[in-house]
């Protein structure tokens, strides 16, 4: 009895993943076709369905951003590109599209400042995302401390030719991990996704507007209060906006 139940369960589980994979593949293909036929809304629906299945993928966000751009929703396009960049920081297509949109919005990504030469170095080619940095740091850390432990147990000193490279790598990935943690959990960045959003003095619809934010502006969310968010703009001004007018990254 037990054996037969297990056998049935095994068969069921064996067949399940391929069916699921076939459906998502079809959904992705259909979404791409819709995009090519300029039916951007339908393409977005297809990609949203993939996201609802738990697929978190930088390239998927990239495609979503492209569709939003075609629909003229610049804020959403920029938001999804920044999400994609967090997952694929080394992807040159994502960076190029962000650069393109920022140019269209009239922002000058290459402002001249003291660190201009430093910033020109393509550090992004060494970037890894949060999950990659977590795995890499965990593995390297295990190797490093394992080596120390082994040496201690053996009673000798750990060989320098292994220790120092490991120390450097762990430092590198550890810094990336700290940056990604800050980016993911503490920075609370958001993008204005509607046109002409008023920056309110108090969280109320009747409040006078201090400033008008334009679509695509980057904000830092400080506080939540009901349907309003206390945000800080790039120029340092603080104010309240309605939650549905901004999108978190």
């Amino acid at each position, binding site marked *: 009895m037990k054996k037969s139940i297990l056998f049935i369960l095994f068969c069921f589980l064996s067949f399940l993943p391929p069916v699921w994979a076939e459906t998502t593949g079809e959904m992705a293909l259909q979404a791409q076709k819709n995009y090519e036929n300029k039916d951007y809304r339908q393409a977005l629906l297809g990609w949203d369905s993939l996201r609802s299945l738990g697929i*978190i*993928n930088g390239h998927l966000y990239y495609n979503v951003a492209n569709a939003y751009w075609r629909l003229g929703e610049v804020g959403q396009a920029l938001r999804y590109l920044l999400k994609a960049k967090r997952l694929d920081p080394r992807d040159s297509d994502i960076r190029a599209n962000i650069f393109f949109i920022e140019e269209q919005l009239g922002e000058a990504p290459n402002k001249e400042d003291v660190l201009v030469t430093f910033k020109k170095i393509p550090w992004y080619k060494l970037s890894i995302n949060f999950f990659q940095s977590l795995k890499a740091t965990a593995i390297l*850390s295990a190797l490093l401390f394992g080596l120390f432990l082994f040496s201690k147990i053996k009673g000798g000193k750990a060989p320098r030719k292994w220790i120092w490279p490991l120390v450097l790598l762990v430092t590198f990935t550890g810094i990336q991990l700290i940056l990604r943690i800050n980016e993911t959990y503490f920075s609370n960045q958001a993008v204005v996704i509607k046109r002409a959003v008023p920056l309110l003095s108090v969280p109320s619809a009747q409040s006078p507007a201090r400033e008008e934010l334009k679509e695509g502006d980057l904000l830092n969310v400080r506080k939540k209060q009901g349907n309003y968010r206390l945000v800080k703009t790039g120029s340092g001004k603080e104010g309240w906006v309605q939650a549905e007018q901004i999108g978190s990254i």
Partner: protein
Amino acid sequence: MQSSLKTIFIALFVIWPFVLQAETPSIEVRVDRDTLTTRETLNLSIVIKGGSALSTPDIPNRGNFDVVGQSTGNAIEIINGQMSVTKSFDYVLKPRGKGNFTIGPIKAHIEGTTYSSSPIKVTVLEDDQKPTYQPAIPPPIQGQRPTTQPPPPPGWSDHPSGVSPPSSQDRGLTFLTAQVDKNEAYVGEQILFTFRLYSGVSLANAQLSLPDFKEFISEELIKERKYQVDLEGKRYAVNEWRIALFSTKAGKLATGPSSVKASVSSIFSRRPPFNDPFYRGFPRTQRMVPKTFTAPSVTIEVKNLPPAPQGFLGLVGNFKISSHLTQDVLNLGDTTNLEVEVSGTGNINEANLPPLASTPFFKVYPGNPSLDLRKSLQGLSGKKKFTYALVADRPGETTIPSMNLYYFNPQLEKYEKLSTTQETVRIQGRRRQEKLVTAGIDEPGGMFAPPPRALDLRELKPPSDILFSQALAPWEALLWWILLLGSPVTYLGFGIWEKGKKRALAQADDKKRSKAFKRAKVALGQTLKVDGGGGFSQFTGVLKGYISDRFLIKGAALTPLEVERLLQSKRIPEEVVRRMVYLLEQLDSWKYGGMKNNLPPETELKTEITNLLREIEKAA
């Protein structure tokens, strides 16, 4: 044959666009009055527009009137590719009797189609006893306020103002009239100034001097219009000029005097000689006499415009506005033209639109406006076209806002607002391939090169790239965190454990060291008698045991020489070391040599050992 065919073909090719764009034909008929007496005449004006220059009107019901004067005129205009042919027929009609008559409808056959005007009703009254003199009032102009100039009283002594009475020797009359269609107007409002030269006699070498219109902007409407009128039974040839005036400021403004210098023919007869009553006289002769005829300045009361709304740019008259967008769906980088046309009567050349600003979706490049003026007896009218080139700069859907134009309507005496319609434009994201030309500044290449200027977003990622999830499941992330944090924690734990162990060992050693002397003393107290080898072994054991405990070494197998070295290394005084070594050697010799004769007493031996250990204890 071939070359002539070629010529015809080329001619047709050149003319064809103009033919295609010829104006739609129409016929207009008007009279200068609808009530007159049997002694007066009526001016009938027929204007045929469009069609060939050979079109002639077909006038019915001519039995009630006599044609006492007529003139014709032709005009061909080609404006912005549109050709318009205008033919005018002017008739001076004298009624045959009193009654109510209908003139028309007058028909014209143009290019196979019959165009017809509306009939005009005319009332002819019985002539009065008093002769009536009415100056030739200009034909009624649609939309304008009636003239406020009071009609002059009848009689030869009453002439149009400013005109000197004719010489009694002249058979006819020659005089000038200068009139305006309104004596009160607003600043910028169109005023029609009509200047007429009436001549009942022949004129030669006529030189016209029109007013300078210092305080007006003037536009000549008709250069010269000729017709004939009957005034009190006398026929006059009339030369008429009409000018549109637009005042530039408020106040009582004067047009200025007008004059004509001409030689007028004059017939005179000589007196009979010798005062002979039977002399019938010499034949009369004709001579040209130079004369100057003057019409005085006309004063117009010009009023300031009422307070204007924001955006009013000085347009006065009656206008309409229309707009047209050439394309409402375009790609990035494409151009669409917004054409706005302002048309109407008034100072149309003053029409201006507020600037159309560039938006995030469009870059706006305004063109030069084109002006199409129409001059007629009714005044100055026309169209002014504004064109804006809009270059699509960003994809999406946007609305081109409506543009407002304010003008002052002098008839309604209020400001009116005209607005263009809002236009919605959809810009798609595909930009045609363009080659960008940089300013020629060399940019650094290699890894420091800035990204190349993009014309559009990059292509989509293929489906295969988007089907896997980069994120970790919560339990996976937890495992990795455990591994990440567990490694240093494990290492630290091991280190702590090791230290603890060492500390414990060190503590045990310290304890052993501190209790070495006490243990040695206890061991000494428990030793057996010296006799027999057992006693010596015990004493040796006590000494070596003490050294082992005190200095934490295995001292059981130490030789006296090793003990000596050890004690010396611990900086024990030489005397004590020598005594220790001597004692150990003695004990070994007594134990193994069997020389028992020189054995010291047990207590002495114990005391010596105790003292020795105490001194080592002190020195260590």
